[in-house]
Every structure is written in C-alpha cells, then in structure tokens.
C-alpha cells in the first residue's frame, strides 16, 4: 500500500493557546511553566461547580481575518484560520505557488461549532424570534473548519475533519501522515481546534464529575499525576502544523522542526467515558505507533502524555506506559502540557504535537506544573515543575478520547 515510503516533516507551526499565541510565545510559556488558567470570563460561570478555564485571551480574530469571514464562522474556525495563517507564514509556505491539488487539509475538532449553535438557540428562546442566520448550518458543521482553510489558502487536495473527541488532533495528524506517505498530498495543513467554553459544555462535563473545582487557585487547579488532582480544567484554542513531504521541504529549503515517523490508533471498545483500567488499549496504540516508526521502546526519549488530571486517566495512562516501556520507564520523562493550558478537547493533541516539535528542535522538554504530592499509582518521572534539557531523538505523544478513541504519534528529530 505504501511503497518506498515517502517521509513527512513539520515545517510550520501555528499556535493559538491560552498561554501564548504564535509558536515562539507558546514555547517560551511552556518551557517556563506558565499557566493559562484563570477564572472564566467568556460567560457567567457562577451556576457551575467549575468556574475556571484556560481561555485564549488577547485574541482578536480581526487581527488575522477580514471582517466578512469573522462574522460568518464560529470561534473554533477563527482559531483554525489564525493558526493556519501563522503556520503557513512560519513555514515560509506560499500556497499560491503550489499545485493546489497537492495541498490538503485534515483537522480535528470534538465539538465543532457548538458555541454558535448554543448562542443561536439561546437567542431564539430569549427573543421568541425564530429567524436563524442563513449560514447557521454551515457555521455549526465540523467540516466548516477544513473548508474555510481550503478557501483561505486555495488548496484543493484531500480535505476532511476528524472528530474523535479528545483524540481528534492526533487522528488528524496521523491521517495527514498517511496522505503524505501514500502520495495523495505533498503538503497538509493539519492539527486541531476547539472553542468549547459554553454553558452547555460546562454543565455537561460537570454532570460527568470530571472538572476541577479548585476555583480558588485557578493556575494551580490543573495538576496531572499529583495525588491532590481533582479533574481537568476546560481549555480552548488550537494548533495547525504544516506537514510536508521531505523532498518537497528540502527543495524549498524549509526549516524542519521534526519528522513525523509513526502513528497508531485503535479503539478500546470498553465504555463511552471510562478508560479501560488495564490500560491495554492505550498500550496497544502506543505499540502500534512505535511499530509504524520502526522503533523499540528504548528509542523513545520523552512522552508528551494525554495527562488530563482526572483521577482515572492518569492512573490508566501510567499503567499503559509501564506495560509498553517496562524498565525503560526509569529513564523516560513524561510530562503533561495540560497542566498549563488545561484540556482543549479535540485541539489538545495538536497543541501537544506542537510542543513535541518544539521540544525536539530545542532539545528541551517542558514540565508538568503543579506537581507536589506523589501518587503511588502514578509512579513515572513526570518532569515536575521545571523544564529539562536533554538529548531527544524520538518522542511519543498520546491522545485518548471519550468512546475509547486512542491515537499515538511518534515524532523524531530531523538532523539539519
């Protein structure tokens, strides 16, 4: 199926995150352990148990998009178009000079245009006026995001949206890797975006008892692997990566952050919201990604964990990592980006892939912040609170979504 496998490298990063907009600001904040979690400001969160979030502040879509587009899309598409623009600029990629059919878009989002959907309904109920925006269907649809990126950059290659809850961004990246490997595309805009800060989302996640209630200390609330963790903190934002066929990147002298070398995905077929306590399914996804990359567990120098900060995830993920990596765990640092930017659902894996690219290019790994009290059931090296410089050749990034959707990605240093 994949003959003389073509290689895929990341040449551009576009990030819109709660602790930084743009790859450089995002990296500075992550390596310094800066939290983006604050009290919720985008709606009145008073009726909810969790009133904190990693909101993207200081983001005006008008800085990136014409007014005409700003008004016609949901916030999750604002994030995507801004991030795609940043990524293309970062990559020095001029899509108008590319063969349009060779440039594709595969993005992930868990909830799509839920913010607009909810706002329209609340407005209709409040006013009694049942006039909906003529574009409403297309604003709510998850594939609005890949369509808008295609229009913005005039790219007509493979184009779709992946929706696998909190694993969406990793599935998007993995499927984009396949498009490059099989030759269906030379350049892919890939990643994930999410704008889930709405009353419905807070109420719905509250009902599942998975959100942190540490409203008194927002920046300390997201504490993956810490014994005192009490759930995740809702986040938003997104990252878009320019994933490019290696020879194509070399021909135009592009700067290369990292090579994406492996992708493994599966389903645990266990429960809609609970992870399999054995960790077997997550372990199988990691093993599949390693096999795809042609690497042994010992070759992995760092894991960017799913690391949500819920009691269940962190224990199951730790078990799964132990299963796959065994004694190598003693020398295998694992950290959680969500300790700083909360959990941006389908966008989280894309933001974490951006962290992996930056970690590989800087040879430094960002910490898990707020790690204070060891939990006997979470006994790995979580890079507590301070970033660490070390030699990184290959790293693994995990993402696990509701419905037991698992996807792991392997990224490798590209020597330049």
């Amino acid at each position, binding site marked *: 199926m994949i003959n003389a496998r073509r290689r895929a490298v990341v040449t551009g990063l576009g990030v819109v995150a709660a602790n930084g907009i743009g790859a450089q600001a995002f990296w500075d904040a992550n390596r310094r352990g800066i939290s983006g979690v604050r009290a919720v400001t985008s709606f009145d969160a008073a009726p909810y148990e969790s009133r904190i979030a990693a909101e993207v502040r200081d983001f005006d879509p008008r800085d990136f998009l*014409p*007014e*005409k587009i700003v*008004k016609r899309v949901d916030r999750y598409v604002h994030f995507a178009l801004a991030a795609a623009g940043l990524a293309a600029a970062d990559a020095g990629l001029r899509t108008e000079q590319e063969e349009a059919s060779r440039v594709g878009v595969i993005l992930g989002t868990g909830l799509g245009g839920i913010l*607009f959907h909810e*706002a*329209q309904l609340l*407005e209709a109920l409040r*006013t009694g*006026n049942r*006039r909906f*925006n*003529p*574009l409403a269907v297309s604003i709510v649809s998850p594939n609005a995001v890949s369509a808008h990126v295609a229009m913005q950059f005039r790219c007509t290659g493979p184009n779709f949206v992946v929706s696998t809850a909190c694993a969406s961004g990793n599935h998007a990246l993995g499927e984009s890797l396949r498009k490059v490997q099989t030759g269906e595309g030379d350049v892919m805009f890939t990643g994930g975006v999410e704008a889930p800060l709405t009353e419905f989302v807070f109420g719905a996640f509250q009902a599942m008892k998975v959100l942190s209630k540490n409203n008194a200390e927002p920046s300390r609330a997201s504490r993956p692997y810490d014994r005192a963790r009490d759930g995740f903190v809702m986040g938003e934002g997104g990252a878009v990566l320019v994933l490019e066929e290696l020879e194509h990147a070399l021909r135009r002298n592009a700067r290369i952050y990292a090579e994406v070398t492996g992708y493994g995905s599966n389903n645990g077929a266990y429960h809609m919201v609970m992870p399999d306590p054995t960790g077997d399914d997550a372990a199988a996804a990691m093993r599949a990604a390693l096999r795809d990359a042609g690497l042994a567990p010992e070759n992995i120098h760092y894991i960017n964990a799913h690391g949500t900060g819920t009691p269940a995830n962190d224990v199951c993920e730790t078990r799964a990592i132990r299963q796959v990596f065994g004694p190598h765990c003693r020398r295998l640092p694992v950290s959680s980006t969500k300790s700083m930017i909360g959990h941006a659902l389908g966008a989280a894996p894309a933001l974490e892939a951006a962290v992996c690219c930056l970690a590989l290019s800087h040879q430094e790994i960002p910490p898990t912040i707020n790690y204070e009290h060891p939990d006997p059931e979470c006994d790995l090296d979580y890079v507590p609170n301070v970033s660490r410089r070390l030699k990184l050749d290959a790293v693994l990034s995990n993402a696990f979504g509701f419905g037991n959707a698992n996807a792991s990605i392997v990224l490798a240093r590209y020597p330049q």
Partner: protein
Amino acid sequence: MSADTPQKLDPKKVPETVIAVLAENLDLDSRGITLESSLTGDLGLDSFGAVELMFELENRSGLEIPEQDVRDFKRVSDIVTYLSRRLHELDSLANAEPQG
C-alpha cells in the same frame, strides 16, 4: 452574529446602510458602489449572497422582507426605494389615529 431586537432604521440612512451592508457582505469598497450599480452584473451578488443580504437588512430595519419582493431587485436603488417605502408605511401606521 447575535440577532438583537432590531432597532427601526432611520429612513434618511437607508441609502448609506444598503451600500454599507453590500460592501461588507461582498467584500467590496463602498466607494465603488452607487445607487445605479447592478446587483448581479456590477457587484457579483449571487443567489445565496442575496439571502444573506436580506437577512442582514431585516436585522437592521426590523422589517420582514418576503422572498417574492427580493426577486424584483435589479439595482441598488431598487432596494433603497423598497426599504424607504416600507419604512414610510410603518411610520404612517404608527402615527395613524386610533379608530373607534
């Protein structure tokens, strides 16, 4: 994106409002739009663009614009004349002496 309860449009401001909405919806420079501009020929308004345009004008005028009326619009001036007439009718109704 929110559809607040529409405020009635000042009849004197109908021409500039129509031109501003057209410019914004079609991504055109408002200085290039005149009352004589033809909607499809000069401005490139397509059928879905017309749906969006009417939605926005309804928001701003508080009027309901039936689809069959929209079909008669050929030039910018047709929309201006139509909205002015409808707003005037609304005014006359509001100022009419209560009967009985």
